[in-house]
Each structure stands twice: as structure tokens, then as C-alpha cells.
């Protein structure tokens, strides 16, 4: 045999010779020195070639060779066998090498990831299949699916869904912000699903999120993902992740990982979405980590002018340095993005902004105090500015602000709620003879239950605006539904209880209703209403439930009074009748007021002001009713000499006493010193003089059969009191005193003119001259005083 061609040698080296040819070749080789040399060289060449191939394939990311790992298409194919046809290698991740593979049986493309070997023998099965387990647990359309796991020749691999798409930032390169946001929200949903199952991805970056041509993103590579239950096992000093998408806590020893660690990476993606740049563009790792830990990124709106401020705020909140200040999970972040997409107001503020505001406001407030002390600001202006600053630095609860805002959607919500309440009320007061009693309250019961469930669900999902809407509707439905159910199902009915006098049946009868409602039923319904109000208040901390609470408490109190027989029987039920002792409501009113004052002093101003306002209103109304009813508390004071004062006089003099009480109360409020109390004081400062001067004027009018001598006393008291108020206003700059005093003087002048001086021309002239003299005196007197002081000084 002559020396073979190179082709034969090549096939021999690669072990591809047929048995016949092989034996012939080997026989020749034993005799031919030349061929032996060539084959030896060829073997050497082949070794070199493997080295070259390895370096070529990994030239950008050179890696050490390891016989344990699967690097090439050939190696992968050899392992996977016939079912899978390996097409190409698509990359290397933190945990292994990934190939695109055709599954010839199921006729689909899959991705196969060969895992790197790390102490495989020590690990339990669940640890070894960590990534596959995390991904299959998720089963979310936004996360690539795991089809199969396998192990051949100690080489583990995961067969996964093949995702044909571009990395996130490439995919949205030419899209407008709105479309980018749609993709981004889908990413958030997938990560939220992971967070909901207690899984933290830890390596969120554009190349781990592939976006298909129909803009559906898929999350890949849970290779370094973590389950929150194993968080304590995180090695304290091992950094894992991608530097540019690293959260501060990942590079601050001891390393801590939270779901909000993912939120930080998502914040970086949002920043890229808005600006097409990285918030921390440093390429040098040292500088990059320093920036991540200490620097605030440039504002997106400074890079792109059209960036919506709401989105900017959301983005900066996601990029907070302190995980506590960030959105705690991807769900919270998604909620705010959805809020933005729905056109609602987003209230999130990055903490550094509010820190800055707090600082500025602190200095401003210090200045305000100085200005007030230097009388550059009046007390009132100071209060008003303080009020505004207070709102700026500690805005009330989001739910309150959102629920108070009459946006279109909010008005729709309340409108719907009101219709439900009205529907239930119609159900309540009409008699539905065609429907069996059992079914009559069912719609209202279902509506109430639905409102409560929806409200609680919304609250859990942080949709506080909707939650307050649903819960306040539920709160209005509770008493109606309770009364309706108790009445129709004949529970706690008046017949069974001796003290169950029907109280509101009278009112219902006037509304052409034949539902019989007893006081006991009213008692329990209002008690439930009160309980629900307190529960909703406890849950939402929205002051609307303080109002509901007060009203329900008053209804409950009324039912107590009726049951106790302290308020008149049904047929004469009239809240303004004199038999009703308004004093019974005076004490709860005082109670509300005092409670409000206490809460106010403990900075619970949101709860304090409704309590104080309602308390004050009840005090004023009750004192007024007491004054005009027979059984007044002043009655016995003034009836010390029977017949000295007639009936009307007693009532009116009582009102003057009320005015004095209000002035005293105003003094108390003012001395308490908070802003709310100062507001109450200014209201009382109007009520006091109006009660006193107005009543004095009425006492002097004709037709009240008051003794002439008494009338003269009142007639003289009016101008004296008025002048007293006018000059009393000097002390505390009280405009209420000043203006009501002026009005009092005007009525006194009118009264004197009509009574005594209508024919004397000198009277108006005297008034004019007196006025001029007063003005001159007020002009000159200070000058004289000043001169005298100067002279004394000399």
C-alpha cells in the first residue's frame, strides 16, 4: 500500500474510518515511518486546534477550560442524543451555557441550559434544581416556562421555552413612551408574580428580559434567584448581580437582599425607559458602586424635557437608596404605574425631595415666627401660612386626598355609591307585598356585603381611593340594611320587648311606608353602624369615618334616650318640641369637643377637627335650645324673683348668658394655642358679640310686653356694650368684636333716634361733630403723648 492521502489521515484521526479501511491503514502505519510522523503531527495539530477553537469561541469572554462543562455544540449534541438537535450556542449565563435546540419529537424550538457544576454531590435535589424549580413554581406568561429537567453523565440541564425576541432596551428602542410603558408593566407583572411567591430575581437587566415581536416580555435566568425564606442563608460577602443594575444594599456589607432589591433594578429600567440612558453611567466599578450608594441620579426631566413628572417621581422612588423608602415589591411599583396610565394622580414622592422640602420649610417656619414676633405678619396670616406649610410637609393620608378630590372617576364612584344607597333606602321604606319577607332585604344585604368585600380588597391592593369610595358606601348601607333586615325578618321586634316603642315608624308612616321599626332594632342597627365606622376608621384612617362615627353615635344615643323614655313618645316626636331636653345632647357635645381637644393636642389633627366642629355645633345648638325652652338651666337662676322677668325676657337673657359662655369658651380655646383651637376661638368670637348685642336689640323691641323700665336698661346697655366691643377689639386684634360693635352702635343710634330724638336737628349735627372731635383727638393725642415723653426724656 502506498502512503495514503491527507483525507484518509484526517478521517483516521477523527475516528471516522470504516473497519476495513482502518485495518488496512493501521497495517501500513506500522511499516511506514513517514506516515507515523505525519499521524503524530496530525494528533498534535488536532490538540492545538481544540485550543484555538475554544479561544476563538470565547475570545470576547475567555473562560477557563474545564472538562466538566459543556462548551460546544458538538458536546451538547453528544449529550442530548437523538431527540434534540442542537442548532447553536446562544450564550453563557451566570449558571451555565445555553443552546438553541430543536425538539424533533414535539417539533418545537427549545432552549437548553447546561448548568455549571458546583459541589453537585453535596447538594440536595431541591438545591441542585434551584433555578428550574423557581421558574416552574412561577408558571406565569411573563416567565419562560421549564419543560423538562435532566441529567446525563453528571451533567445537569434544563429544557426551557425558546423565546424569540430582543433584549428589553433593544426592543423598545424606537417605541414611544406609552408603548414602552405597556411592555414595562408586563415585566412588572411577571416580577410581581415572583415576589408574590417569595422569589427574588436578583439579576434583572435588559438582556434577561426578552421581548417578542408582539411586545410580550419574558423573564429569563433565575440562576441567582432567591427565595425569601432562605434569605438568612445569603452569604454575607458574596456579590452577585450585574454592576450597572445593582442596588445599594447589594454592595454594602453585610449584604442584604429584599424584594425591593429587584425594585431598584426595575427603577433603573424605568430610568432607561424614560431617558435611554443609565442613571449611573460610570463604567469603572469602584466609581459606579460609589455612585449607586451615595449619589442621586440626574433628574430624567433634565435629560428629556417631555418626561412626565409623575413617572419621574415613580422612577426616583424606585431608585431610593434606602430599601425602606422604595416600593417594597414590584406590585406596589406596578400599582403606581397603572395609576399613571389611568390618568390618576400619583402621590409618590422620592424621599430626597420631601427631605429637601422639610428642610426648606423648617427654615421658612423659623422665619415666619420671627416675622410674627416682629409684627410683619398678623397672627391670622401666620396661621394661614403655617397651615399651608403643614400640608406641604405632612400631606394627609393619600386615601383622604384621593377620595376628597372630585375627579371624574371619583364623582362617578360616589354617584354610583349614592344610587346604591338610595336603592337600598327605597327597598327599606316601601312595603313590597308581592315579595315574601325573607327575600325583601336580600338585595340590600348582597350590596352591603359586596361593597365591604370590594372595599377591603381594594384597600389590600393599595387602591385607597377606590377603597374609601366602596367603604363609605358600605358604611351608609350598613344601618339601612340592618334596619331593613331586622324589620322584615321580624327580629328584635317591638312586640317582644316592652321597651321597644316604635319611634321612627311615625316618620316612615308620613313617607307612606308601612314598615314597622322598633327602637330596639334602631338601637342595634346604629350600634352596628358605629362599630363599622370605627372599624373602617381604624383601617383607612380617613376622617370621613369620623363623621360617620359621630352621626352613628348620635343616632345610637337617641335610641338609648327613647328606650329609656327620656325623649317623648312616638306620636309627639318632634326634635324641636320644648319637652325634649336638649341638655341630654349637651354633654355628648362637650364630650366630642373635649375629645377633639385632646386629639388635637396629640397631633391627631385629622380626627380632631371633625370632633371639635361637631362638638361645638352640638354645644351651640343645645345651649340655644335650652335657652328658648322652659326648662332652661338659666331659668331657675333668673326666676329668683317670680314675675320680675316675663317668659320672653327670660329666654332672651339666657341667650345673652350663652353669648358670655361663648366668649369664655373662646378665651379657653385661644389659651390652648393650637391652630385648630384658634380657628374655633375666632368662630366663638363672632358668636359671642352677635348673641349679646343682637339679643339686647331684640329685648328693646316692641311687642314683647317687657316692662318699660327694663327696656330702658337694655336700650342703654346696647350702646355701652357695643362701644365696649369696639374698643375691646384693640386687645387681641379681634375684627369680630370691632365689626359687631360697630353694627351694635348703628342699631343703638337708630333706636335712640326713633325713640327720643327724631325731631331734634341738633342730634345728627351733634353726632357729626362728636365724630370729627374723636378723629381729631385720635390724630393729636398720640402726638401730644409723644411730645410729653420727649420733654420728660430731656
Amino acid at each position, binding site marked *: 500500500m502506498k502512503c495514503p*492521502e*491527507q*483525507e484518509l*489521515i*484526517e478521517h483516521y484521526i477523527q475516528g471516522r474510518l470504516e473497519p476495513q479501511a482502518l485495518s488496512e491503514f493501521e497495517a501500513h502505519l506500522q511499516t511506514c515511518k513517514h506516515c507515523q510522523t*505525519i499521524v503524530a*503531527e*496530525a494528533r*498534535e*495539530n488536532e490538540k*492545538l*486546534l481544540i*485550543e*484555538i*477553537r475554544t*479561544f*476563538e469561541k470565547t*475570545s470576547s*469572554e*475567555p473562560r*477557563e*477550560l474545564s472538562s466538566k462543562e459543556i462548551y460546544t455544540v458538538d458536546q451538547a449534541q453528544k449529550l442530548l442524543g437523538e431527540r434534540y438537535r442542537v442548532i447553536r450556542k446562544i450564550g*453563557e*449565563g*451566570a449558571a451555565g451555557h445555553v443552546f438553541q435546540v430543536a425538539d424533533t419529537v414535539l417539533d418545537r424550538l427549545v432552549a437548553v441550559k447546561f448548568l455549571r457544576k*458546583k459541589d453537585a454531590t453535596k447538594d440536595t435535589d431541591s438545591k441542585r434544581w434551584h433555578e428550574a424549580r423557581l421558574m416552574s413554581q412561577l408558571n406565569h406568561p411573563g416567565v419562560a416556562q421549564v419543560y423538562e429537567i435532566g441529567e446525563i453523565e453528571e451533567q445537569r440541564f434544563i429544557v426551557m421555552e425558546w423565546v424569540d425576541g430582543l433584549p428589553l432596551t433593544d426592543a423598545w428602542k424606537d417605541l414611544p413612551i406609552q408603548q414602552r410603558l405597556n411592555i414595562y408593566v408586563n415585566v412588572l407583572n411577571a416580577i410581581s408574580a415572583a415576589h408574590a411567591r417569595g422569589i427574588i430575581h436578583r*439579576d434583572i437587566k435588559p*438582556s434577561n428580559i426578552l421581548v417578542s415581536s408582539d411586545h410580550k416580555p419574558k423573564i429569563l435566568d433565575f440562576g*441567582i434567584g432567591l427565595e425569601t425564606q432562605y434569605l438568612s442563608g445569603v452569604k454575607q*460577602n*458574596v*456579590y*452577585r*448581580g*450585574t*454592576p*450597572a443594575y445593582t442596588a445599594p444594599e*447589594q*454592595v*454594602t*456589607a453585610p*449584604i442584604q437582599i429584599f424584594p425591593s432589591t429587584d425594585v431598584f433594578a426595575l427603577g433603573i429600567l424605568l430610568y432607561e425607559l424614560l431617558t435611554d440612558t443609565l442613571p449611573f453611567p460610570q*463604567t*469603572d*466599578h*469602584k466609581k459606579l*458602586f460609589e455612585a449607586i450608594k451615595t449619589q442621586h441620579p440626574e433628574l430624567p426631566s433634565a435629560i428629556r424635557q417631555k418626561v412626565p413628572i409623575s413617572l419621574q417621581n415613580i422612577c426616583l422612588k424606585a431608585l431610593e437608596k434606602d430599601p425602606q423608602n422604595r416600593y417594597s415589591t414590584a406590585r406596589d411599583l406596578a400599582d403606581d404605574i397603572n395609576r399613571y396610565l389611568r390618568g390618576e394622580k400619583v402621590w409618590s414622592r422620592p424621599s430626597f425631595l420631601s427631605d429637601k422640602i422639610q428642610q426648606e420649610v423648617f427654615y421658612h417656619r423659623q422665619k415666619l415666627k420671627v416675622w410674627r414676633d416682629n409684627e410683619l405678619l398678623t397672627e391670622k396670616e401666620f396661621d394661614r401660612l403655617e397651615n399651608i406649610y403643614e400640608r406641604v410637609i405632612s400631606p394627609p393620608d393619600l386615601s383622604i386626598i384621593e377620595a376628597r378630590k372630585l375627579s371624574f372617576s371619583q364623582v362617578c364612584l360616589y354617584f354610583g355609591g349614592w344610587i346604591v344607597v338610595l336603592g337600598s333606602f327605597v327597598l327599606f321604606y316601601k312595603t313590597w307585598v308581592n315579595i315574601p319577607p325573607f327575600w325583601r332585604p336580600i338585595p340590600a344585604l348582597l350590596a352591603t356585603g359586596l361593597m365591604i368585600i370590594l372595599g377591603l380588597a381594594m384597600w389590600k391592593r393599595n387602591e385607597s381611593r377606590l377603597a374609601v369610595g366602596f367603604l363609605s358606601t358600605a358604611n351608609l348601607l350598613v344601618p339601612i340594611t340592618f334596619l331593613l333586615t331586622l324589620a322584615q325578618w321580624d327580629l328584635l321586634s317591638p312586640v317582644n320587648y316592652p321597651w321597644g316603642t316604635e319611634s321612627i315608624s311615625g316618620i316612615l308612616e308620613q313617607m307612606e311606608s308601612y314598615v314597622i321599626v322598633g327602637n330596639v332594632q334602631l338601637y342595634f342597627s346604629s350600634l352596628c353602624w358605629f362599630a363599622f365606622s370605627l372599624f373602617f376608621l381604624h383601617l383607612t384612617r380617613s376622617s370621613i369615618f369620623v363623621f360617620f362615627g359621630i352621626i352613628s353615635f348620635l343616632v345610637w344615643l337617641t335610641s338609648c334616650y327613647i328606650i329609656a323614655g327620656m325623649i317623648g313618645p312616638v306620636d309627639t316626636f318632634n326634635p324641636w318640641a320644648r319637652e325634649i331636653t336638649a341638655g341630654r345632647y349637651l354633654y355628648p357635645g362637650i364630650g366630642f369637643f373635649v375629645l377633639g381637644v385632646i386629639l388635637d393636642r396629640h397631633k391627631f389633627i385629622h380626627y380632631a377637627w371633625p370632633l371639635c366642629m361637631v362638638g361645638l355645633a352640638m354645644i351651640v345648638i343645645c345651649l340655644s335650645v335650652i335657652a328658648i325652652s322652659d326648662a332652661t338651666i338659666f331659668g331657675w337662676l333668673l326666676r329668683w324673683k317670680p314675675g320680675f322677668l316675663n317668659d320672653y325676657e327670660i329666654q332672651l337673657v339666657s341667650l345673652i348668658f350663652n353669648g358670655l359662655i361663648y366668649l369664655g369658651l373662646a378665651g379657653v380655646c385661644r389659651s390652648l394655642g393650637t391652630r385648630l383651637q384658634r380657628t374655633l376661638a375666632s368662630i366663638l368670637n363672632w358668636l359671642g358679640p352677635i348673641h349679646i348685642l343682637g339679643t339686647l336689640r331684640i329685648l328693646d323691641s316692641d311687642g314683647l310686653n317687657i316692662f318699660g323700665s327694663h327696656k330702658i336698661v337694655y336700650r342703654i346697655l346696647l350702646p355701652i356694650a357695643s362701644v365696649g366691643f369696639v374698643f375691646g377689639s384693640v386687645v387681641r386684634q379681634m375684627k369680630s368684636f370691632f365689626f359687631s360693635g360697630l353694627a351694635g352702635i348703628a342699631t343703638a343710634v337708630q333706636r335712640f333716634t326713633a325713640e327720643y330724638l327724631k325731631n331734634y336737628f341738633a342730634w345728627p349735627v351733634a353726632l357729626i361733630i362728636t365724630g370729627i372731635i374723636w378723629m381729631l383727638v385720635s390724630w393729636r393725642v398720640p402726638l401730644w403723648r409723644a411730645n410729653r415723653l420727649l420733654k420728660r426724656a430731656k
Partner: protein
Amino acid sequence: MTQWVTTTQLLEDLKTTHDESAWTEFCSHFQPVVIEFAKKLGLSNVEAEDAAQETMAAFFKAFKEGKYDPAKGRLSNWLFGIAKRITLNLRGRQPLEKLIADKATGTSFWDMVQDDRTIGRTWELQWQQMVLKKCLDQVRQEFDPKIFGAFRHYAIDQFAIEEVCQRFDMSRNAVYIAKSRVLSRLRQLRQRFE
């Protein structure tokens, strides 16, 4: 394209010529190896360059003082000793969180480099890669583009033999011969380089 030189020649030049060119030539060969090595050990680009410069300077000083004797060991080993000392020293000065390696894959530095043996292997790989790259550049210059192209397509990129024959209009045997010749020359060059 740089001229083909061997390490012996580079060192010889360094010894005999006293201008900057020999030094620049020397650095252009070995500095990239140190940079890549330092990066693999977790230094940033800038720091890796610093490390490489420092290594070169330290080597130059030792060389001028006549401390390096080619008979005692490879240039590679000598440089490795210096590069390792300087890089680890630089790395030791860094905070913990900086000790990461691979930006693209997020692989932890600690996963890769754990002991002296691994560090040595990392260096060896960088060195081999540099040498292979130089040799490949050289054979590309030496051979006919058709021959080199056939070699590259068939041997490195693993195209099917029929495709390579068609593209370069060569017989199968010619392609196999091209592969064999280029590889033999590569081996020769590599041996000579060190």
C-alpha cells in the same frame, strides 16, 4: 501588523538597545496579558491598566538589574510572579463589594478565582491566548489567503467540507492539506515564540 518576534528576541532588544522603541515593543506584547489577567481577578479597566503598567515597570527594573535569567525559567512565569503580586496587592486595597468580575454575566469573582492554582491557570490562559493570537496573525500573513481561508472555515468554524471545497474551489484533499500545513506552522511558531 507587528513583525514576528520571539520573546528571546524581545529581551535581547531590551538589553542592547537603549531607546524607547524596544520598551514599547515589549509592552505592546505583554501589557494586554496583564490587563486581562488583572481584570479576571476583579480589577476595573482603569485599575487593571494601572496594574499592568506597574508590572511592566517592576519587570523593567528587575531586568535592568539583571535579576531575570532566561535559563532559570520562562518569561511568562517571571511576569506572572510580578503581575500576581501587584494585582493582588491592588485588589487587597479595595472594599469587598468591588470584588466582582464579570459585568455581562454577573458571575461572582469568588466563584472563579479561589486559590493560587486557579490564579496560575488564569494567567496561563491569558498568556496562551496572547501567544495563539500572535501566531494566528503571523500565519495569516505567511499563507496564501485561499489556504488560510479554507483552514479557518473548515478547521476553526467547522463548516462542512463540501461547503468549504465549493467556496474556495479546492479538492477535499487540498483542504485537509491546508489544515495540516497551517496547524503545523502554528505549532512551530508557538514553540519558537517562547
